[in-house]
Each structure stands twice: as structure tokens, then as C-alpha cells.
């Protein structure tokens, strides 16, 4: 759901840029407090993987495709602030190098797929793990639900921005975006679950950053 240039009005562009800039600068502070040197390659690999997996559009119904977002995977493994930084780097690279997502819409894309997707998935995941217990099953179910929710909520944020910008009334664009992304979210949940179970099987000790507190 990379928004191209031309869809958003000036107010929405300015607001989302301001909120995203504030969020990213706070994320730098938070990550600086928590990230240890041994986490550096994990952040790099996650960014590379999210970029690569986002290229693989999978078909859903009616001649539409969806692709992996990755914010949930990053947020569950490294916490929402590190995930926001990872998503911001991926989105900037996509916009500057690959012309995917507009330059003026970059603030909105970072807001939707960085801030909204990372935090919604992180807290949904935490909630499920709290309810089901911190088992392997709880983690994977939480990962699926968190990932599905991140796509769904990010699509709603995107629909609101489009409606506020006046391209389409909210009653039209909101159900359309939410409906199609409720399906894409299933793919997100499955890929996130598969990636998490791989990490759990191979290197469960990497699942650390969110527990790192002073």
C-alpha cells in the first residue's frame, strides 16, 4: 500500500511528515538506549529480508495482489522502535531508488507502514502472548494475529488519509481498503509465522531486544 504522489493533499502531506519525523527521531533515542552491538546484524538482515520479501507480490482474489509488509516481524523480534527505524530505511530506499511510493507521500507511508503497523502488531502480539502464555504456540499465534492486524490497521490509516485528502469519500474508500487488506493480512500472518518459527527453531536467543530493559 505504498501511496504514490498525487493522492494526498498538502495538509495531509505536512501532517504525516511531521508526525513521522517526530516518531523516527524518538525511535533513534529509544534504540540508542536498548540496542546492543550484537543486535546490529539482526537489524541489517531484517531490513534486507523485508525489502526482498516485499518484492514478492502474491495473488489474492479478483486480479489483485498483496505483498509482505514486515513491520510485524521486525516489531515482534526487536520491539516497535527498532521496527520503525527498519521500516523507515526500507521505505526511503523504495521511494528514492525504486520509485515505489511517492516522495511527497513518504511521510504518510512511514506513518502507515512504519508507526501504525509496528505498534499495532507489537501490542496485539503482546496481548495474545499475555492471554495464551509465553509458549511457542502463543508466540506463533500472536505473530499471526499481530501481523494480520498490522496490515488491516495500516490500510485503515491509509484510507483515512485518502478520504481527508478528498480523493474518495470515507464510506467508499474505507471498506474497500479494509476489505482487500483483511485478505492480504492473511498472507502477512502466514509469512510472519513462518519466519518467527524459523527464528525460534534456529536461534531463539535472538528474540531478545524487547525484553532488554535497564
Amino acid at each position, binding site marked *: 500500500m505504498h501511496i504514490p504522489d498525487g493522492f494526498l493533499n498538502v495538509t495531509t502531506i505536512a501532517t504525516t511528515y511531521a508526525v513521522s519525523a517526530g516518531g523516527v527521531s524518538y525511535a533513534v533515542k529509544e534504540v*540508542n538506549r536498548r*540496542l546492543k552491538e550484537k543486535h*546490529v546484524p539482526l537489524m*541489517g*538482515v531484517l531490513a534486507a529480508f523485508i525489502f526482498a520479501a516485499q518484492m*514478492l507480490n502474491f495473488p489474492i482474489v479478483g486480479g489483485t495482489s498483496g505483498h509482505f509488509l514486515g513491520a510485524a516481524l521486525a516489531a515482534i523480534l526487536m520491539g516497535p522502535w527498532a521496527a520503525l527505524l527498519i521500516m523507515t530505511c526500507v521505505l526511503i530506499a523504495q521511494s528514492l531508488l*525504486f*520509485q515505489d511510493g511517492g516522495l511527497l507521500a513518504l511521510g504518510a507511508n512511514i506513518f502507515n507502514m512504519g508507526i501504525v503497523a509496528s505498534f499495532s502488531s507489537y501490542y496485539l502480539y503482546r496481548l495474545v502472548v499475555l492471554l495464551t502464555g509465553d509458549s511457542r504456540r502463543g508466540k506463533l499465534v500472536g505473530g499471526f494475529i499481530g501481523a494480520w492486524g498490522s496490515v488491516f490497521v495500516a490500510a485503515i490509516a491509509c484510507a483515512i488519509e485518502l478520504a481527508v485528502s478528498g480523493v474518495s469519500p470515507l464510506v467508499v474508500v474505507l471498506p474497500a*481498503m479494509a476489505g*482487500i487488506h483483511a485478505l492480504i493480512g492473511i498472507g502477512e500472518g502466514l509469512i510472519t509465522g513462518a519466519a518467527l518459527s524459523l527464528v525460534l527453531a534456529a536461534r531463539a536467543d535472538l528474540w531478545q531486544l524487547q525484553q532488554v530493559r535497564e
Partner: protein
Amino acid sequence: MTWKIKWWQIGLIICLLVAVFSPLASSSPDGLEKVAESKGFIGLAYEAPFQIIADYVFPGIENEAVATMLAGVIGIIVLFGVVCGIAWLIRSRKGEPA
């Protein structure tokens, strides 16, 4: 001295494998594009003012599958390098000798 493969190197190999499969990706419009088409506002979108590797196809290569794979590999290298660099710069230095 034996060289033991590290977990993040395995992670990068997985990324490169994904890039090899990237030409198989569905070319149907994604969720937002589809909504923009069906609700009649896709025409508002305009092209980027410059194009580098637009639409994940490396320019000047006739074979589109190869051009897509190359775009994927470039993106993987750029993101791994840039994000590791940023993470290394802003990592916590607590507990390290000054």
C-alpha cells in the same frame, strides 16, 4: 583456522534466494492500486520526477527476469549495509570503555 558460517550470513543467503524468485511475483495491482482503479482515482497518481531502478527493473537489461533479480540484489545489499551502519552508529555504548 576453520570458517564457521554465522546466522546473519544464513539470513542474507535467504534474502538472496528470495530475490532469485522475485521474477515470479504476481504483476496484478496491489491492494491500494486496485482500490484506486475501482474507485476511479488512480489517474491522480503521477510519475516520479526521476527514475533510478523504477518498478524493480534494472534499466538497460533486456531479460526482465534478470533485471528484476539484479534490482532485488542491489536493494538487499543497500539495505543491509545502510541499516547495519545506522544501527552501529546509534547502538548503546553503555558498559563499553569510553
